[in-house]
């Protein structure tokens, strides 16, 4: 055997039943109709985001074998989905790179930089919520941990911000483990409540510690680039890499395991997926993405305070993920841009803008409940 089996922790004497969801007695007729009903369900997919074909390196011999196996009757339009996603990504990047040539006022640059950072947050939360199906209502905790770690180290020790990145990664991984290890044993509805609590705890802690500057926060955090334009480009590059990384993780062994867990934890366990570890890995990945976004945030504003890390922020990131399409990389990028830019576009409406923002969101969710760019599990042969 290739894997060292690990024993379950003892100390749960009453725990005869590990999973009540595993087959309880059901009549054969019942299961047959249930299966048939499920097979007939017509609604759209929410699955893998970017389906890069995994057998791309296979030779032509393999191709013909595949064609033979598949037989006829496959719509040809699907064959281009791989390219679509690739091109969509490149087109998005191009738009982001050209945007300052259209409008480079300090205000516009600041809004665009914030939007890019928000995209990174959404890509990180998408790993937890979209891929792995874990509802996290306190995601902003990791954003705060990253921002404060880099801010405190840079100002207290007089370090350049880049030098704090390794520490940020270590601290966010630890934070992910500390928050995730106890909570991921819980059922998902409890998980939502506990993560919500952790989000608040982090904020209140920052509010009360001296090292974090209390309610007024930290000032004079050094930047990462000379000018706002340069910083914007740096942010776009970092965020693009983060989005690409999240997409690649999603298409790998661990990414599939996340989806197996989301779809059916028992079936995943039965196939040898250590569901607890896999969930923890998703949580840690999300934490690192959020923490690194926090570094960009600290560099962008040069000042951070607890007020930036409220529950509203967690809710907005979650909204971006849901609005765009859970588990879909192009979806969450679009969702994040919409959520961060829309309030700025509506700024002229003054007091009504958040009202209209809410109405627009509700309209989108009613018209496209699967998100703006939903994930697809359909593979490209």
């Amino acid at each position, binding site marked *: 055997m290739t894997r060292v089996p690990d024993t379950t922790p003892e100390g749960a004497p009453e725990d005869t039943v590990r999973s009540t969801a595993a087959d309880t007695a059901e009549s054969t007729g019942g299961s*047959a109709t249930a299966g048939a009903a499920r097979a007939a369900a017509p609604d759209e997919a929410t699955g893998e985001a970017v389906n890069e074909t995994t057998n791309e390196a296979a030779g032509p011999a393999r191709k013909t074998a595949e064609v033979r196996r598949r037989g006829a009757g496959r719509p040809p339009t699907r064959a281009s989905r791989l390219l679509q996603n690739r091109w969509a990504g490149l087109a998005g990047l191009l738009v982001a790179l050209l945007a300052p040539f259209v409008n480079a006022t300090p205000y516009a640059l600041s809004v665009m930089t914030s939007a890019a950072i928000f995209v990174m947050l959404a890509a990180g939360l998408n790993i937890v919520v979209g891929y792995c199906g874990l509802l996290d209502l306190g995601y902003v905790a990791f954003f705060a941990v990253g921002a404060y770690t880099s801010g405190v180290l840079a100002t207290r020790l007089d370090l350049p911000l880049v030098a704090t990145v390794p520490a940020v990664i270590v601290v966010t991984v630890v934070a992910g483990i500390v928050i995730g290890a106890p909570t991921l044993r819980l059922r998902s509805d409890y998980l939502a409540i506990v993560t919500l609590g952790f989000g608040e705890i982090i904020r209140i802690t920052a509010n009360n510690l001296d090292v974090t500057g209390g309610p007024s926060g930290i000032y004079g955090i050094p930047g990462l680039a000379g000018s706002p334009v340069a910083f914007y480009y740096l942010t776009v590059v970092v965020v693009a890499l983060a989005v690409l990384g999240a997409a690649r993780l999603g298409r790998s*062994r661990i990414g599939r395991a996340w989806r197996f867990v989301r779809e059916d934890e028992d*079936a995943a366990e039965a196939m040898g997926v250590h569901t607890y570890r896999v969930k923890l890995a998703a949580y840690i990945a999300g934490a690192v993405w959020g923490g690194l976004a926090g570094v960009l945030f600290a560099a962008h504003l040069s000042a951070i305070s607890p007020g930036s890390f409220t529950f509203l922020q967690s809710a907005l990131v979650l909204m971006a993920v849901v609005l765009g399409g859970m588990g879909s990389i192009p979806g969450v990028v679009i969702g994040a841009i919409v959520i961060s830019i829309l309030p700025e576009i509506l700024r002229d409406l003054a007091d009504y803008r958040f009202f209209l923002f809410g109405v627009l969101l509700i309209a989108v969710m009613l018209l496209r409940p699967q998100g703006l760019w939903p994930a697809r599990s359909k593979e490209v042969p």
Partner: protein
Amino acid sequence: MTTLLSVSDLRLSFGGLLAIDGLTFSVNEAEVVSVIGPNGAGKTSAFNCVTGFYRPTAGQIMLRGRSLRGLRPSAVAALGVARTFQNLRLFGELSVLDNVRAGAHLWLRQNVLDALLHTPRYRRSERECTEQAHHWLDFVGLRGDRYGEARHLPYGEQRRVEIARALARRPDLLLLDEPAAGLNHGEKTELLDLIRRIQALGVAIVLIEHDMGLVMEVSERVVVLNFGKEIADGRPEDVRRDPAVIEAYLGSDTHA
């Protein structure tokens, strides 16, 4: 013939209910053993105990002399046990291929860095994984679309996918929980052939099944459960004539 799985004096209770009350049986390498019994006899519960989903109250479960008790299901799977579920547990919204790739999860040699950098090792392992998935789908004779979502397949095809997923685990022991349930006559004939071909790979099979024709045809031995108690264990032709078994299946009708 060496013993692969041996279960002795297995007991499981849910509160006051004794779902399994002293079950003892063993399975040799590459052998087909059927577990039969009326509804609620405790067959699925026994599977759940072996695979780590339920924790037995008492008894021993040994795989090649190694105890499986207290292991979590993924650890049992890692030791070479795969299973299907009585009420189909596919990853419905994932592609058929991805479902079968789940079986290859433990065989894949790639880490997070490979995935992030798309190293040759990543590409190779993904390619092998996909080839394996195709192989096992061919093996079970899937005719439907393997690139689309699993839930869109007809029921009988979904059953095949679930078996392909378990086979992709390349287990030494395969537990099938009522694989013929809901299948039509032609599909049952194909299932019979499939079970024989799986056995020919050197995989031992424990089969829970209500279809007696199938059970009598494929099993080397049959274990009969009734109300959690084991009432017979032997060759199919002997078990079929056992008065206790006839009694359990036909109830008081035999005396009427």
